[in-house]
């Protein structure tokens, strides 16, 4: 079993000899944290040296943000050790952590809309009644910080809600750097900035490195990581898988580490399944069912045009917040695009624009949301009621429900999808995540959809149920239903889909043929690289 794990968690405290000369400012050992059933962090190890710029990278859901929240005192770790400048530290709340010298810029631009720029920079530095510093000092401090970050002019009295997203992000960075920091953490902290502003922020970080201050940052831009970092630590599925000085790692190696392809056999298996997926749809007329015309997801993003064919499974991928969720929401008109349109194509080839969710439903476009608990399930109701919820609009005679017909369809569906629900009268909230997902899916399948838009449908679904659902998706597709399948798991996309649309910064960055692509190609595209350059030999 050839693995690429280079950092055995048990040996994490052993640094290479060259590193020992440098004082370690922060050491994280075996930190774990779960949210309910989800294991966000399993065993994270990290060592940040004094005067080092350290990149923490990984795919969505690899645990980066969880680790950063722990290091910022926002959430406590469940287990593991944290050493701050040589001593065990508690990291119990943001206030204490900041007093120790860790300042964080969070992924979400956390500004208080009604407060001024100056107030937003200095909130949290006060006591309950006592200001941390005089107003005059705040004015000079805030304007100096903002200038250091590359904005020459920003009225400190403007309320934050009048600022652009980029300006808000700069305000949150300013908030961090006016504190007496020794470690600055940026969790996607420059994602809203344009290239020239980002460069000025990076210049600032480099200048601080020479003063012996450390930076820990996450980024979805690979060039940024290699440009800025001294050292890279890769997280995958809540574990630290590797850590190396930036000079020792190729971009390709980093992408391989992140994508989690553990052996050559895995890759071959994935490729095989990918061709399986392609095999199921022979013999169908490949007419288009949905056409996307010049869809612009965000101001300034390039327009997207593509066609979805009958019986096709289209994968949708991208790192967090790169536009892929907006895209699938635009397909069923849950969200309005900046410009462009989505057309439903009927069997004669005529297109009709989709303007509203009701339109989408009328044209047989059915959406299964990501957050099944809040956007999909009716938790107190039974399995059967959840299944039949949408069906009643069809199955009634002057308002009297045709329960027997609905029951028949339920039996049909539960056989086809291998639904294990026990009795159909039991409360849906007692089902496992996978079976809940089957019920949600069944609600729309029973309505004879033409297109199913699935937003990360297999999140939190166990492996066996996944296999069932893969089979079921394929059988749906072979019956002519087009499926748009958003997933964060690349292997899954490669196995199940025919094409994968990879989003980056609001653009459709690449449209890959699943048969030919490898997981490394997909990861490269997710990070905004040219997928072809990372093709496996």
């Amino acid at each position, binding site marked *: 079993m050839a693995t690429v794990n280079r950092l055995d968690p048990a040996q994490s405290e052993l640094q290479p000899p060259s590193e020992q000369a440098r004082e370690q400012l922060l050491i994280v050992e075996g930190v774990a944290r779960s949210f309910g059933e989800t294991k966000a962090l399993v065993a994270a190890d990290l060592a940040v040296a004094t005067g080092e710029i350290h990149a923490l990278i990984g795919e969505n859901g690899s645990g980066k943000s969880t680790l950063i929240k722990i290091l910022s005192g926002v959430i406590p770790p469940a287990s593991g050790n944290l050493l701050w400048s040589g001593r065990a530290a508690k990291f119990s709340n943001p206030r204490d952590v900041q007093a120790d010298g860790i300042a964080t810029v969070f992924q979400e631009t956390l500004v208080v809309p009604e*407060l001024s720029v100056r107030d937003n920079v200095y909130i*949290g530095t*006060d*006591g309950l009644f006592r200001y941390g510093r005089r107003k005059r000092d705040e004015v000079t401090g805030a304007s100096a910080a903002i200038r250091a970050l590359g904005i020459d002019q920003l009225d400190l009295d403007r309320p934050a809600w009048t600022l*652009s997203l980029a300006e808000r992000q700069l305000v949150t960075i300013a908030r961090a750097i006016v504190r007496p920091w020794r470690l600055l953490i940026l969790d996607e902290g420059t994602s809203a900035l344009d290239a020239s502003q980002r460069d000025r922020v990076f210049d600032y970080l480099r200048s601080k490195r020479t003063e012996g201050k450390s930076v820990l940052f996450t980024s979805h831009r690979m060039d940024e990581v290699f440009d800025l970092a001294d050292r890279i630590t890769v997280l995958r599925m809540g574990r630290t898988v590797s850590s190396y000085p930036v000079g020792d790692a190729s971009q390709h190696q980093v992408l391989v580490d992140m994508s989690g392809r553990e052996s050559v056999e895995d890759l071959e298996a994935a490729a095989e399944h990918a061709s399986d997926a392609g095999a199921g749809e022979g013999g169908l007329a490949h007419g288009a069912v949905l056409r996307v015309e010049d869809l612009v997801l965000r*101001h300034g993003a390039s327009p997207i045009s593509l066609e979805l064919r009958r019986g096709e499974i289209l994968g949708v991928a991208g790192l967090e917040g790169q536009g892929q969720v907006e895209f699938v929401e635009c397909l069923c008109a849950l969200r309005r695009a900046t410009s462009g349109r989505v057309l439903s194509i009927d069997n004669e080839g005529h297109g009709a624009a989709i303007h509203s969710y009701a339109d989408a439903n009328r044209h047989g476009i059915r959406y299964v949301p990501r957050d099944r608990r809040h956007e999909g399930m009716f938790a107190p109701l039974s399995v059967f009621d959840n299944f039949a919820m949408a069906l009643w609009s069809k199955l009634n005679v002057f308002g009297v429900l045709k329960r027997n017909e609905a029951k028949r369809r339920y039996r049909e569906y539960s056989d086809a999808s291998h639904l294990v629900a026990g009795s159909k009268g039991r409360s849906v909230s007692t089902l496992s995540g996978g079976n809940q997902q089957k019920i949600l899916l069944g609600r729309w399948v029973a309505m004879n959809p033409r297109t199913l838009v699935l937003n990360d449908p297999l999140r939190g679904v166990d492996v066996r149920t996944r296999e069932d659902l893969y089979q079921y998706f394929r059988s749906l597709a072979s019956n002519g239903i087009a499926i748009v399948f958003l997933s964060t798991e690349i292997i899954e996309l490669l196995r199940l889909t025919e094409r994968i649309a990879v989003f980056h910064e609001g653009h459709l960055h690449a449209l890959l043929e699943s048969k030919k692509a490898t997981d490394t190609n997909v990861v490269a595209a997710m990070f905004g690289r040219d997928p072809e350059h990372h093709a496996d030999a």
Partner: protein
Amino acid sequence: MPDSTLTVPANSAHLRAPVRRLFARHSYAAVPFVITVGLFVVNLVVQPAFVYLSNLGSSMAVLFPILLTGMALTLPVLSGNGGIDLSVGPLAGFVTVFVSAILMPAGIRAPELVIPIVIVFGLLSGAVNGVLIGYVRLPPIIATLGMYLFWEGLGTQVQPEAGGQVPGWLIGINGSYGPVPGLLIVVAIVVVVWSLIARTAYLRNLLAIGGDERAAFSAGINVAAVRVMTYALTGALACLAGLMLAGLIQSGDGTVGPPYTISAITAVALGGISLAGGRGGMLGGALGGMALFLIQELLTAGHVSVYAVSVADGIILIIALALNGTLEFLRRRRSVRLGPQQPMVLVQPEELGGFNVETS
């Protein structure tokens, strides 16, 4: 670029002068201000006797409990996250009982004793709300409903109907000390104390947790401590309202408080304060209380029955809330249409074609 000086870009000229800045900060109060002035004028026209000096004292005596409970409720609403204190009315009502049935029999009647005791009592009882909400994390509406029932029950248990005596100076507040009306002194004290508090970091902390609790917490604000202080100050203001109420009814009465909770909520809504928190200020609560009082004066002058006044209050509350929501919507939409919240990306001019598709 010169160092250490504040540069002001041209695009924020509307905020340049300090006076305008002051207005910008209190912009939420513009509509309530206009409403209050308008109602005042209408009152003048309908019943000119309204402002006679001889009537002023009794008018203000009626106004004050409404005004102070409205101001008291402003703080928890500003603190966001469903912040509200339903117990302000019953707590004010209980203070009348506290003074007449507990302090008076104990021989405590001098203002220099009664006022501090009542204020401390208010801070402590408010802090109980604050701990339940900030640390135990109960929803504010439930925690303070519990305290509402507690104070109402305790007050009526001790004094189920008007009775007992209150110190003479408390009744005398409605008169005047020499040429100065007593209530004006109370106004002055409240204004001075609040502007002192507003100059501290507390107000910034309050608006921060009300505006975005996650931002406030992650920036290092002790959110729970700010909450406790907020509800404690609310309790103190409610108890001050209770003292005024005792002076007005000249006795203690456990049943007199609860309606003031409703009037306080109406006052806050009329005062342009966002019920979502983080936007507004004490001026709003005060203006709202005054507007509500002026409406009631007008209805009383028109010999409208008490029940019809209640109907009017209900309608006013709903209109005020709808108006708040509409104004907030318009303000936000204006900001969206100006487009500053979009990411700053380099856009080719020809790509700007679809810029306003959403609104067309």
